[in-house]
């Protein structure tokens, strides 16, 4: 599967390992360790899907989501968080996130959601 993903998570160990695993499955992944990093990275290259943590120091996930949806409405955002707050999940979906997943996640589930997101963005074109 060929697609480009931006993984945003302040847990570097988690982000790098997940990125490597996705790479092994043919998904090219850029990693950003903060919201600010993510927005900078987006100005260089635009992925099809962003995997976004909600709780991060500095700019929080929902704010990043809002900016992405505002500047790059075609990018699909999958929220991936350790915090199971329904209100945040609902808020995320309201702001236009594609889905909401909880850590730890099975890689197969994640890839399935990424595929769904990609096909959705393709349908929207």
């Amino acid at each position, binding site marked *: 599967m060929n697609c480009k993903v931006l993984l945003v998570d302040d*847990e570097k*160990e*988690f982000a790098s*390992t*997940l990125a*490597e*695993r996705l790479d*092994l499955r043919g998904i090219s992944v850029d990693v950003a360790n903060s919201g600010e990093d993510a927005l900078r990275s987006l100005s260089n290259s635009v992925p099809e899907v962003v995997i976004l943590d909600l*709780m991060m120091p500095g700019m929080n996930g929902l704010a990043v989501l809002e900016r992405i949806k505002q500047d790059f409405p075609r990018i699909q955002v999958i929220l991936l968080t*350790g*915090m*199971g*707050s*329904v209100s945040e999940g609902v808020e995320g979906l309201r702001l236009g996130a594609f889905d909401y997943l*909880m*850590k*730890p*996640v099975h*890689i197969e589930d994640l890839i399935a959601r990424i595929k769904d997101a990609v096909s959705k963005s393709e349908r929207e074109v």
Partner: protein
Amino acid sequence: MNLRKFIPAPCRDLLEIPEEIQGPRRYAMIRRNISILMFLITLVPLALMALINYHQYQSALKDEVLSPIRVLVNKTKHSFELFLGNRLATVRFIASAYTYEDLANEKKLNRIFRVLKQEFDGFVDLGLIDANGVQVSYAGPYDLKGKNYANQGWFEQLKVNSVYISDVFMGYRRFPHVVVAVYHLSDSGEAWIVRATIDTRRFDELIGSMGLDTRTDAFLISRNGILQTQSKFYGNVLDERPDLIPPASYEPAIVERNDSTGKEVLVGYAYFNRSDFILMVVKPKAEVLKAWYTLKSELLLVFIGGVMVIVFVVIRLTRVLVERLQVSDEKRELAYREVQHTHKLSSIGRLAAGVAHEVNNPLAIINEKAGLMKDLIQLNSEFPQREKFLGLVQAITASVDRCRNITHRLLGFAKRMEVQIEVLDVNEVLQETLSFLEKEALHRNIKISLHLAKDLPRIASDRGQIQQVFLNILNNAFAAVKDGGTVSMATWDKDFNLVGISFQDDGVGMSEGTLKHIFEPFFTTKKVNGTGLGLSITYGIVKKLGGEIEVFSKPGQGTRFLIFLPKTSKEGVES
């Protein structure tokens, strides 16, 4: 405003029970203390009132009883004095109207005596005594002519006072008599004395006219203690009874004393002004104060009746009061425990969310690292001990999954479920839930018994949540029963607002200690696979749905859960 400061300190102490005294003893003490206090504030004024009334009535009644005696004594004394004064005046008239010569003439004197006896009763004789005390002439039954009285006490007394009334003496025909004498000094300076004897039958008539009852005595007594008239109880005429003489008083007076027989009596009396007589009326005290004694016993009866009514009312009232207090205390305690429980749930919920989040992140790292290891091993077919490592990684990811399940349940508990209301049939939901457990029931030969109300009203509630509640309880029931045990369920239309669902198992049951804690988060008796969240979540859901959950259990006798769900949902209205 603090009313407590108006309560006197000892009473305040009575109302304060030390905190360490709890349970039935505390309420017994409260009951005792309130009773004491109420007795004090009701019985003391009552007793005071009774005492004051007692004294007031006593003095009022005494006055009322005594004044007629006084009046009677006064009236009779006047009658006596009138009688004596009258006789004295007659004798004085004779002494003044006739000359010495007239009176010295026995013929004339006899005529005067005859007329006198016609006009005035009681005269026994009449005589003239000259200034030297010698009887000059005499008309009457005795032969007193020539008798010399010069040496007798009364003769000297008469010369000083000019009139004289003697004490009673036994005279002619054994009748008691008195002597009335008048000393006359004529214009020419001659002096003579007219002396008459009167029998005292008239005295008895006067006493008889007092209209006394049989237990009351009245008599005349002389100042030197000799009875002048017959007494009912104290002797005959001329008996000496100096012990009867009351203290001197010319006004009618009353004294209380014990008479010679020891009887309590009231003595009304008055001294005569112009003679040595004392009129005495003696009444037994019991007789006089009969009205008072009646009143006293009535007063006592009313007092005792009042006390009994107060005691009865106080005891009943206090019992009701303290029972109400106990009930309200228990209700408050229950509400307090519920609030505490809810509070505990919510704070544990917050803690759980925090913990879950903190654990989820490192868990995710482990998961990815292990996943990557697996990826790398799978990609390299030359990897030494490939199968063993794959097995190890598999074990890691399985453990991660287990942890994830726990943290997800923790979070589920923490976020307190959103409610989705629909109209549903509880029987249907129950049967649906049972279908999840059919296999296990079959496998373990557990007998399922259903008593579902046929026309159970449909209720507005959350299907998923109710299912979870049923599932949690059924899981516990299945865990509690042995293979071949029974789990029975029933539904019924409880009342206007609620439907009831019961789950009864014949499993191991629970001790009271366990029962107390089963709705608390993280409390579990399952050694493996128990998070201790199941019943806590169940409790939370039932409460959130506006229902009630109750549990009854005894070790070895199984467990019974009762759930009451409202027919209509507030949540539904809001959403």
